[in-house]
């Protein structure tokens, strides 16, 4: 079974076709990257996967289940975690609370139990908190647990966003430009971190990124979008040398180079 299978997805905004008839599939346990010029429709593609916009056409299967047109909260329950291109943390909540929100669907406390804080509620809350702390430790943010999220430096906010997505216990993790705004050193750390996620947690990861060094090193496979359409797909090597990709995206001098 594929982790993700998209068939002929299309999304239009007015006259603009942001995602045009895109089909692709991602294997379980894979790190799969989506690249393409700005405005190619990558983020929109993610938004289709997570239900923020319903696709105008096409179907989306998650682990074999058809989720086309489901709202975001239902898709999250299917095990899809994501981060956003522009960080969207709950700024006025603490780091720990951000994680607990991420665990929302895994805290099984019915309303009346919460209202009266029954032993069940207490137990669950405590368990959730322990788990959240473990996760924070895992991503190295435990020492920040009581800080307000918006007071964290940018890099740590990025990390927290990933941690929050992990709190959902996703089977599929979508990362939208996680390395944006990071310097090369920090990007290297991020790379190791993502690899660890796959190795240790077995999560399937789909990545949007413009940092080619990261993409080329980390990806098992890569898809390239341009003007909403998929123009190439393959291993990093195949993509890097694809003339169309070089023309549209990488630029002649930059192929695999400095960016």
């Amino acid at each position, binding site marked *: 079974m594929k982790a993700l299978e998209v068939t002929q997805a299309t999304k239009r905004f007015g006259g603009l076709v942001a995602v045009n008839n895109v089909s692709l599939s991602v294997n379980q346990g894979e790190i799969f990257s989506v690249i393409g010029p700005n405005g190619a429709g990558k983020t929109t593609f993610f938004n289709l996967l997570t239900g923020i916009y319903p696709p105008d056409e096409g179907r989306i299967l998650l682990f074999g289940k058809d989720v086309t047109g489901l709202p975001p909260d239902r898709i999250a329950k299917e095990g899809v975690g994501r981060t956003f291109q522009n960080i*969207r943390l709950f700024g006025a909540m603490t780091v720990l609370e951000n994680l607990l*929100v991420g665990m*929302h669907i895994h805290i099984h*406390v019915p309303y009346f139990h*919460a209202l009266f804080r029954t032993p069940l509620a207490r137990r669950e809350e405590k368990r959730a908190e322990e788990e959240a702390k473990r996760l924070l430790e895992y991503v190295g943010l435990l020492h920040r647990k009581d800080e307000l999220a918006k007071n964290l430096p940018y890099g740590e906010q990025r990390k927290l966003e990933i941690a929050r997505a992990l709190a959902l216990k996703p089977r599929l993790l979508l990362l939208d430009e996680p390395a944006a705004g990071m310097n090369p050193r920090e990007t290297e750390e991020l790379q190791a971190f993502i690899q660890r996620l796959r190795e240790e947690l077995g999560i399937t990861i789909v990545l949007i990124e413009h940092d080619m060094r990261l993409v080329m090193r980390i990806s098992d496979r890569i898809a390239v979008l341009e003007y909403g359409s998929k123009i190439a797909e393959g291993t990093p090597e195949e993509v890097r040398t694809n003339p169309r990709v070089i023309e549209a995206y990488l630029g002649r001098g930059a192929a695999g180079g400095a960016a």
Partner: protein
Amino acid sequence: MNALSFLLSLAYLGLAFLAPSPVSHLFGLAALGVTAFLRLSPTWRTLNLALLTLAFTVGLMRSGNTLGLIGLVGILVALTTLPRIPTGIRVLLALAILLLSVPLAGFANTFVFELGIQIGIYAAMALGLNVVVGMAGLLDLGYAAFFAVGAYTWAIFGSEQAKNFMQGNFPLPGEYMYLFMGIAIVTTALTGLVIGLPALRLRGDYLAIVTLGLGEVVRILANNLDHPINFTNGPQGITPVQRPPIDWFRELMGTLGVKLDQTTDYQLFFYFLVLLMIGLVVLANVNLANSRFGRAWVAIREDEVAARSMGIPLLPTKLLAFMTGAAFSGVMGVIFAAQRTFVSPESFTLLASITILGMVILGGMGSIPGAILGAAALTILNLDVLKTFSEFVRTSLPQIPSQVDPAKYERLVFGLILVLMMIFRPEGLIPEKRHKAEMEEA
């Protein structure tokens, strides 16, 4: 410094005992200010607060002037906000004020009870609205509607009104009030559902205007459903509404050595009932705030898209907040109807909704002690301070023209307080940390 403030408090105790008057109470308030704002050692501060509690109680018992009540409220605030006071003492003093001082003062002046009850009712509602506005960030300008639904739920069946449209033995006996507190939770929650289902689909300020409209709709219905079938008795209002029998309470108080008469029995009873309700409501508030629901509400307020991506369904979660707030208000409506024995549409205007909202904001959005303090402050202001002031002006300065009678300008004062407060302390009197952070954002 320590000694000085202690002396001040002591002096006030003396004054309260020997020469209780508005002036000595003002002095007491000053002493409280000194205790709260000067840099004192925790021990002295605690001592002072205890002393002042005693002094205000004595002062209230001896003069019945409601300035003393402000003092007690002030002490309660100090107890909840000042740092480094032993928790045991905080609880002890707070209990002493609520369970002893206020009732004692009430016996000297039943208006204290009336104030206490009104504060309590509004505080509970403010706490309910706090869930909706403070936690979930849903701007509800029609909150009084739920109060109305609660009040009418009991008023209709706790009076002869129900005879107009159904068979049965009405009014229902007073004990049924307790049952109806439960029923009102259901009816108001359902009203919340009916109002919320369309309204909560809308964004931000649209919600404000729609809730405002729906709040008016409920009032208009209350005002007009006297025909073709008479449900609400329209503008005439419903009276008398049954109160629960309280012989057991009189007996209980009797065995405690408290003698009650006609003017104080129900007042004391409702005072305790309202206290109990606040206790429950606070508990519910705290519990919810620290549960996955409370966090989901805050998350939605902060960022709907991100919250949904965490698996939080938008509409059900908002509805839950809306219905929770509504239910709080509904229960208090029942108590309001019974305590007043009279219900009419005029109590549930937009102004009432705005006042409750004002309480939440004034106290500090999202903050539980804040909501209570906000309710106390605005209720005392509305019912007592402004009235006392205009009474004072009218009796002692009769030569000023009636056009400038301060009582006519209560809204002006209310407005000024709101505006000044928003400009100089938008985070509220007792800010909650989350919102405080929000306010400080540059």
